[in-house]
Structures are given as C-alpha cells and as structure tokens.
C-alpha cells in the first residue's frame, strides 16, 4: 500500500471523529486528568447517558494543557458549537449533559471552535492560550492517542513519507535549516549529532529516544507520549533513517505507566500499517523499536548512563570521547534524542526546516513546551516560541500567583537549573539568556515560588535530591554533594557557623569544576543562583537563625494562641503525632517536643489560632 492509500483510508476512518458537529463526548484522560477524576467520569457516563436516553460515543483524548482545570470534558453535537467544560465532577456531570444535549444553558469554559459563543470565549482566546503556538502539542486533546488513524488524518507520517523520498543527507540538511536544538537539556543542534552518527561506518547503529524525564517538577515528555505518542515515534523513525539505524529503544521511566501503555500501542499500530518494521513504505529501509522501562535512577537520563542501563548494568556515566555517535550501545554508533526533540521532527520534515525556523530567536529556533507548576494560578502544559519573556509565561499565561501572594522566583531546569528572581522577569526564555542568568533551560520544567517559599530550603531540597542520585563514580560529586548537603542541613537546623555561606560557595565551585558528568557539574546551580539572588535569606538563617518563610524544620515552632482558640478540637483530631492536648471548648496546647511540624493543625484551624514562628 502506498502512503497515499494509507492516508485516504485513515481519513475515512477518522472522519466521524474529526467532524466536531457530530455528537460525541471527549474526556481528557492523561495522568493528570485521571488524577483529577477523569476515570470516575468515564465510569459514570454510561448511567447518565442512559438516564437522558442518549446514545453518544465517548472518546478518551490526551491533555489540552489546562491541567488546573481538569477534569475537562468536551461535548459535541446537539446543534450547538462544541463546548469545553472544566472541573467536571460526577455530581455536575449529569447537569452539564442535560443542559447541553437538552435545551439548557450550559456554562462552559470555552468553545472548541475558532468562534466565541455568547459569553463563552473560543478556546484560543483563553488567557492561558495567549501567545502559545502549538507545534509539539498540535494534537493534544484533539485526537485519541490510541488511534493511529486520527494521527494520520491530521497529517501524521507525512513527514516520514517525505523523508523516505530523500537521501539521509538531505534529511539532515532539512533539520540543519530548521535550527532544531535538543530539548532534553543541553540544547545541542540535532543536525550535527545526526551527521556525526550518519558518517560512522558500521553495520549496526542504534537510535534511542530519551523518555526518562527525571527532572522532578516536569511533565512535558509524559504529556507528549500520553497525548500524541506517534509524533515522537515518527520523529524517531525519521532520525533512524537519517543516521542509518536499524534498531531503536525508547527508554521510559517506570513512573509513567500510561505513557508506556500508549507507546506500546503506537508501536503495534505503526508496525501493522507498515510505517515501522521491515521495508517501511516499500522504501527498503527497516527499523525496529523496543521499549526499555527505567528502574528509578535520575542519572540514567544522562546518555552514557542510559546506555549502561540498557546493557543491563548499573547506570553510571563514563567519560567522553568516545561519544555515543562513535561508540554507543553495545559499542555501536548510537544517537540519543529527547522525546520533544523528536516530536518536532515530523513537523519540520513535512513543512520544511525554513518554516520551522520562523518561530523563536536567532539562536534558539522553534517553540518549546513548558510545564507550569508550583505557586501559580494556572498550572499546566504550555508551548511558546523560544524567546518569550518569563513575565508573559508566569503572569499572562499562568495567571500569576494565587492567594494574593507575591512572586519570589521561578525555578527552571530542575536539579541542574537555577532560581530566577523577580528582577529578571523580563528575561527572554531561550538557551543563551537562561544560561547567562545562571540557570539553564533544561527540559522545560518551571516551578514558580512565592513569598512562602524559603530559598535556602529549595536549594537544600535540590541538594538532597542530587546527593541521593549521585551514582558515586567520581569523588567530587559523591563527596562534594554530601558536604554541601551537610552544610545546607545545618543552616536549616539553625546551627551553622559564620562563614558557612562562603564555604558552601567554595565547595559548590569545586563540585562544578571537578565532576565527571552533567549531574555533578550542574548540581551546585540551585545553590549558586539562590546565593546570588537571595543572599539575604541565607544571612538570616546563619546570623539570626531565622527562616522568614517559616519552612526550615529546625527554625520552626507551632503554638496555639489561647485567646483565639475556641477549643473546637479540629487540630487535636488532625494531629497525627498526638502532640496536641486539651479539652473541648478550652484552649489547646501543642507539645513542641512531640510536634513533627506537619502543618496539619495550621491548615485545619478555622480561627487563625495556630501560629508559626
């Protein structure tokens, strides 16, 4: 079958779904949708539909990126524009269905067309969508990720078909024109890496997709694999063709079971359609892909550690050269790309590298997805042209800081990155500017922090993470991160010595300079940026033994304000440590010796009778 045949067959099969005037119910069912209750909605739908006497098909789709508004349900048909409903619960579901499919006045978040309808804005007009350009996330929430026909009908695999008509060198040239740089962290130009691997003479080469997504606080790659797995798979096949690889691995972290399931299905479907496997689309090119499940080690996201892990050993990085392009998996030339890097490839192959390069800045081309999380009103997954300012991302798209608190910092790049303060909010987000600020772009996690976040605690937190994840192979990282953590712990306990801040900086620079791999080389970044921008917080921990954000355990004490306490016993019931005593209707008392500082009493007290000092 030719690709044109496959396309027209897929278009016919997907037509009823893509026609949004046809009655249909779409439920956003990726991991965050499910965590917010999408599974309960899916279970409740048949009963509700039966009650209303409706026979409407339900389809599970991926993530629209508005995670704060989950669970999201789109209703279609009924002589109305398709409408998107947010925060749907099993209680509200019946009412929404009745209002939409009978003649009620449904209150929706947005219409799923280009046009608003009355007071309801169009999806693209939502504040969260402002300035977004969706390339990688083009199909998110728009297709059933488990249905290859949907992907093909929205021009999927057209990039692969075009690539197979070209020479590998021409494919690489197209990628070079696009200016695509690696989205996994380091920002290395994809074309150069492919070319190096392409030029190696070898019977066997490997193409690996890095889906380890170890940066805690980031979920871009998970969203891609759950919402549109074929885009990464197609990118991988194109890459394999360009470098001449016949086998590939997708290395997915074990914490992502749904992503693994959807990738498995995508591989099976693509193979069935002749888009993967032997003699792809009759081109003579063959490529086979296997999934490798990670086993819980952050360092395995580093490419040489990943190779060791796939080979069945402990994931310890090694020195380069030789680069994986020369000697990688099982000693063969190997190319490793991140999920998002690969998801860009089908688009740039279909429309050409020049069109891709229209977005972004001079040296950072294209768009980038970011995972917005932390103290921000609208959490979710966004995609903007590189060079967009942090202020636009945090305030216009993310809606700023909730609960009338003030912005303190945004953390980019995870444990390898840094904290960017309010003064630098106008910074354009691209590889160069973030590096200048001492942070890194990283894979795209953005964790927003407000006045209640202690920057010493944040730095200590990251150190705890990197120290635990250090593989132990090189001394500067193994011992250096440990010493840094001990120093940070004593600051948090309130027993550090004068001069400790400078000592921390000394050790941090040594770890950075002396470590073998990226983990150790970047582990001090969170400390270095927080000392640079928030030194006063460090000073108050060391000199005054005070944590102004009331976060650091050793400097924190909970007490009951006797005058405000009504003796309602809510705190007494909530305390898991039996640290609170008192009789009903009399002021309660917290035993500081037993208190574990879990904040439960503070959170349940309705009378502001608990203080932190």
């Amino acid at each position: 079958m030719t690709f044109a045949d496959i396309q027209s067959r897929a278009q016919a099969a997907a037509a009823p779904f893509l026609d949004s005037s046809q009655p249909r119910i779409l439920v956003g069912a990726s991991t965050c949708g499910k965590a917010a209750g999408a599974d309960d909605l899916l279970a409740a739908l048949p009963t509700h539909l039966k009650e209303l006497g409706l026979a409407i098909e339900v389809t599970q789709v991926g993530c629209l990126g508005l995670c704060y508004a989950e669970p999201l349900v789109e209703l279609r048909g009924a002589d109305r524009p398709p409408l998107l409903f947010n925060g749907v619960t099993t209680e509200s579901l019946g009412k929404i269905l009745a209002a939409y499919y009978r003649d009620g006045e449904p209150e929706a978040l947005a219409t799923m067309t280009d046009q608003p309808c009355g007071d309801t804005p169009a999806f693209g007009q939502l504040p969260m969508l402002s300035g977004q350009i969706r390339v990688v996330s083009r199909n998110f929430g728009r297709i059933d990720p488990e249905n290859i026909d949907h992907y093909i009908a929205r021009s999927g695999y057209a990039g692969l078909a075009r690539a197979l008509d070209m020479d590998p060198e021409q494919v690489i040239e197209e990628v070079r024109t696009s200016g695509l740089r690696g989205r996994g962290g380091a920002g290395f130009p994809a074309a150069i890496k492919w070319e190096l691997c392409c030029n190696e003479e070898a019977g066997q080469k490997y193409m690996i997709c890095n889906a380890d997504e170890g940066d805690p606080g980031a979920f871009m790659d998970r969203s891609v694999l759950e919402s549109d797995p074929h885009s990464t798979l197609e990118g991988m096949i194109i890459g394999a063709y360009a470098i001449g690889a016949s086998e590939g691995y997708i290395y997915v972290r074990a914490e992502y079971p749904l992503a693994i399931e959807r990738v498995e299905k995508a591989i099976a479907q693509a193979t069935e359609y002749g888009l993967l496997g032997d003699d792809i689309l009759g081109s003579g090119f063959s490529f086979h892909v296997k999934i490798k499940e990670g086993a819980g080690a952050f360092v395995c996201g580093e490419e040489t550690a990943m190779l060791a892990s796939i080979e069945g050993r402990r994931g310890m990085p090694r020195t380069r050269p030789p680069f994986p392009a020369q000697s990688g998996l099982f000693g063969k030339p190997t190319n490793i790309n991140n999920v998002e890097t690969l998801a860009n490839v089908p688009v740039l192959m279909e429309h050409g590298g020049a069109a891709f390069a229209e977005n972004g800045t001079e040296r950072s081309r294209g768009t980038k997805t970011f995972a917005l999380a932390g103290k921000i009103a609208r959490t979710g997954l966004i995609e903007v042209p590189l060079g967009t300012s942090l202020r636009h991302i945090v305030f216009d798209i993310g809606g700023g800081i909730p609960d009338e608190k003030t912005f303190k910092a945004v953390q980019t790049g995870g444990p390898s990155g840094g904290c960017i303060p309010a003064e630098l909010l106008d910074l354009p987000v691209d590889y160069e500017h973030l590096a200048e600020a001492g942070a890194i772009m990283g894979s795209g996690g953005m964790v927003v922090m407000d006045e209640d976040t202690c920057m010493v605690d944040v730095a200590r937190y990251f150190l705890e993470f990197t120290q635990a994840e250090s593989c132990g192979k090189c001394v500067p990282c193994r011992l250096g991160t440990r010493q840094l953590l001990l120093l940070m712990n004593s600051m948090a306990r309130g027993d550090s010595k004068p001069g400790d801040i400078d000592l921390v900086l000394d050790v941090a620079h040594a770890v950075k300079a002396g470590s073998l791999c990226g983990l150790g080389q970047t582990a001090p970044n969170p400390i270095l940026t927080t000392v640079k921008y928030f030194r006063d917080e460090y000073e108050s921990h060391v000199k005054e033994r005070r944590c102004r954000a009331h976060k650091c355990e050793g400097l924190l004490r909970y007490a009951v304000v006797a005058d405000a306490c009504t003796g309602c016993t809510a705190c007494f019931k909530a305390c898991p440590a039996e640290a609170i005593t008192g009789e009903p209707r009399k002021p309660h008392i917290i035993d500081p010796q037993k208190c574990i500082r879990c904040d439960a009493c503070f959170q349940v007290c309705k009378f502001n009778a608990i203080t932190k000092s």
Partner: protein
Amino acid sequence: MKRRSKSPVVHLPELDGVLPRYTREESQLIPLLQEIQDTLGYISPEAMQVTARHLNVPESSVYGVVTFYSQFYLTRQGRHKVKVCQGTACHVRGAVEIIRAVSARLGIKPGETTEDFEFSVERVACFGSCALAPVVVIDEKVYGNVTPEMAVRMLDELV
C-alpha cells in the same frame, strides 16, 4: 572470556513461568528483575541467585544493579503502598509536611514497612502530575492536591 556463574542451584517454583521467557544475556538483567519483582513483590536473596545463574552473570553484578536502582525492593513490602511525591512542585506545595504526617500516623520512616505488612511508605521524585501538586499515590491510584490531614484520613480509611 566467558564468565561462568558460581551461584548455587536454587529453585523458586514461582519463577518457573518467568525465566524461560528471558534469553541468557546480560541486557535482560533489568527487565528480568522487574518481572521477578512483579511476581514476588520484592527481590529476595534467592531470587538474585536464580537470576545470576540464569543470565550467567556474577551475583555481585545482580546485587549491584538491585541496590543501584530505587525501583527494586530488598524486603517484603506492605499490602498498601503509599508513595508520597517529593518532586519540586510538590515540595513547594507542602510535600514534606505530608510525609511527616504519614510517617507519624503509621509509625514508620519512608522506605519502611509496618510490622503487620499492611503499609509501606516511600518517597518518590515526581509522578509527572505536578500540576496537581502535592501528589500522593496509594496502590497505583494518583491523588492530587493532598493535604497532610487528607493523607492521614485516606490511610485511616484503609485500615
């Protein structure tokens, strides 16, 4: 040089259906251990010996891999697995407080199992549901926007 396993011959009937599906290559080590853990619930010393013999690798390599990757458990786990996310997004939204409350309620530290094997508590770095932080996963079900008080209540409901 071809290595020869010196591991004693141990027979674990539970693994009779598992082992034959894995070729005798070192690259099968991690997937095999993953399936053994799915079958037995953890990796026992005997399971490591069986694995070493099957793949013809030294027991020390198997032990090295099992202890390197945080996914593998060396001891029997509780009936309910409570995983509290300690990722960045969850951290800034109060994950430490949740782990303190959960530990206090169950009387165990993260990484431990209660004496009656009802509960195990673990800290995990990010489930990728950061938008709903703080996140707790109990027996594979993901809960978002958890408070310390809620977490304790969910545990009490399982008792």
